[in-house]
């Protein structure tokens, strides 16, 4: 028996990946800090009508606001729930302020969420930090606790490991085995993937293994922990992929008015999520978008891997 995930091509459609790896009641992570947030996976989870998910992310962002509104989530685990520079996540707020369908929450700070995933990746029960003293965060979340350091006697904060059932990672490129290269902001994707029982990689481009091998330091996630690979260009929109397309800041601003009004939010989901079969159709509905957001070219200097 090997721990190694199946050999051979893991490339499947988004529909197949979600059907096979995201189940009702699962703990699901779609990571990416501003950068590389896989909206395409969130939309497919909504289309397939998953229920009772525990959804975890540092920043729920618009995608979890949409998933909360669509009724797929029972619980949200997070550390910053806003729409940066543009306003609020109103489906989330309605739920927490008692004006919408209820949602259980479990709240940390960014460092706490990063630490939970680091513990999960290392298969440790918890992680320690010097944090949370003099705050009300541990009162709001009894899973934030303390431990006495056996060497110095100092009291340190602890958070429990997070081991999701499935983690979705969006990336610029991967090969058919799921060897995944990411550049630009790296967020907590490596820790989230290693912490997870199953991993879905969604890539802007599927490249030959030789491309990965030509620049191994850029590989963030090895294929050996990946279950499925999905080729989904523009799968992060309205988030962005460095070197492929810019963040759609206009849409983030527009979300304030859409999410504020439950009817508008529902109409958005009907048109752009439930009303399309896949990401290709989602993009086809928005002509001009690709041209508006396409990244300009700014290549790095290469390095010599010779010896």
């Amino acid at each position, binding site marked *: 028996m090997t721990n190694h995930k199946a050999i051979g091509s893991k490339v499947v459609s988004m529909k197949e990946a979600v059907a096979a790896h995201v189940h009702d009641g699962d703990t699901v992570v779609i990571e990416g*800090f*501003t*950068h590389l947030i896989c909206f395409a996976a969130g939309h497919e989870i909504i289309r397939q009508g998953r229920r009772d998910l525990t959804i975890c992310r*540092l*920043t729920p962002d618009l995608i979890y606001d949409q998933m909360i509104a669509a009724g797929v989530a029972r619980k949200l685990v*997070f*550390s*910053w*729930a*806003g729409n*940066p*520079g543009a306003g*609020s996540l109103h489906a*989330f*707020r309605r739920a*927490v*302020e*008692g004006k919408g369908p209820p949602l259980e929450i479990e*709240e*940390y*700070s*960014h*460092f706490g969420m*990063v*630490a939970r995933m*680091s513990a999960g990746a290392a298969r440790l029960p918890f992680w320690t*930090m*010097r*944090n*949370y*003293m*003099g*705050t*009300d*965060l541990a*009162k*709001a979340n009894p899973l934030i606790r303390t431990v006495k350091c056996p060497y110095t006697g*100092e*009291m340190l904060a602890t958070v429990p490991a997070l081991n999701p059932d499935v983690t979705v990672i969006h990336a610029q490129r991967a090969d058919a085995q799921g060897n995944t290269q990411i*550049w*630009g*902001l*790296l*967020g*907590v994707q*490596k*820790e989230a993937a290693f912490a997870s029982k199953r991993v879905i990689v969604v890539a802007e481009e599927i490249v030959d293994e030789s491309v990965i091998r030509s620049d191994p330091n850029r590989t963030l996630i090895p294929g050996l922990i990946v279950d499925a690979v999905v080729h989904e260009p523009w799968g992060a929109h309205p988030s*962005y992929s*460095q070197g492929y397309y*810019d*963040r759609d*800041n206009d849409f*983030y601003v527009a979300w304030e008015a859409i999410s504020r009004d439950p009817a508008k939010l529902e109409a958005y989901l009907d048109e752009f999520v439930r009303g399309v079969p896949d990401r290709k159709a989602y993009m086809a509905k928005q002509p001009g978008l690709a041209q508006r957001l396409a*990244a300009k070219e*700014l290549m790095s200097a290469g390095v010599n891997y010779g010896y």
Partner: protein
Amino acid sequence: MRGSTMVTEGGQTAGRQVAGYTPSEMMTAVAARELRDGEVVFVGIGLPNLACNLARATHAPNLVLIYESGAVGAVPERVPVSIGDPALVTGSLMVCSMADVFQCFLQGGRIEVGFLGGAQIDKYGNINTTVVGSYEKPKVRLPGSGGAAEIAVHAVRTLVISRLDRRAFPEQVDFVTSPGHRYRDGKTRRDLGMPGAGPIKVITDKGILEADEATGELVLTALYPGVTTKDVQDGIGWELRARPALGSVEQPSGEELSLLREKLDPKQLYLK
């Protein structure tokens, strides 16, 4: 608090001129002047980002900007609209994971200045960005900590930028997201083992508050041109004490204003 006087009605200046700059421009210029060349700053979006880039363009060309998204030594060519803007990556010195940001840089003691803001700031500099009302049944649910709790714990010193408003400056915050100088049980930062000095200065739109070294209470230490102590007290929900000799703060210079208006925020995203 020895040596302090209570702020009373009627300040030093009766008349108020219409200034040739906005309160946001003043706050940004004041924040920029707080930064020393070569310092390592944990930058937030909005006015802190503008202040850091203003400092870089004037007296502190070697300031190192670190964003919680992992960009180190960022040199953004456009005004970043989010903390994860791709322009923070392009041309930066390093891009690291968030585990590195929080463990190696912040908890590792490498961050000299942190910037924070908040919906509520209290008498002891505790900051609330979590809820208005109770946690279980909030009147208003705010975004939460993000990296704010650990910045307030670890940054060597923290600067707060906030407009004065009675609701924003209550005597005690509804929820402590980021620790100030004294928790509600009276424990101090030293009692609680916090490495950083915490929010030592609060830069407002009317003047500067600083944490009293002995008590940790925020006291008025400087007034902006044309502002009275009463103007400041009107925006604060506790009886504000003041240093006996208040400092004065120079208005933004022509250079600072033209950099802010023409180069750093030409579309007035933040300098409204």
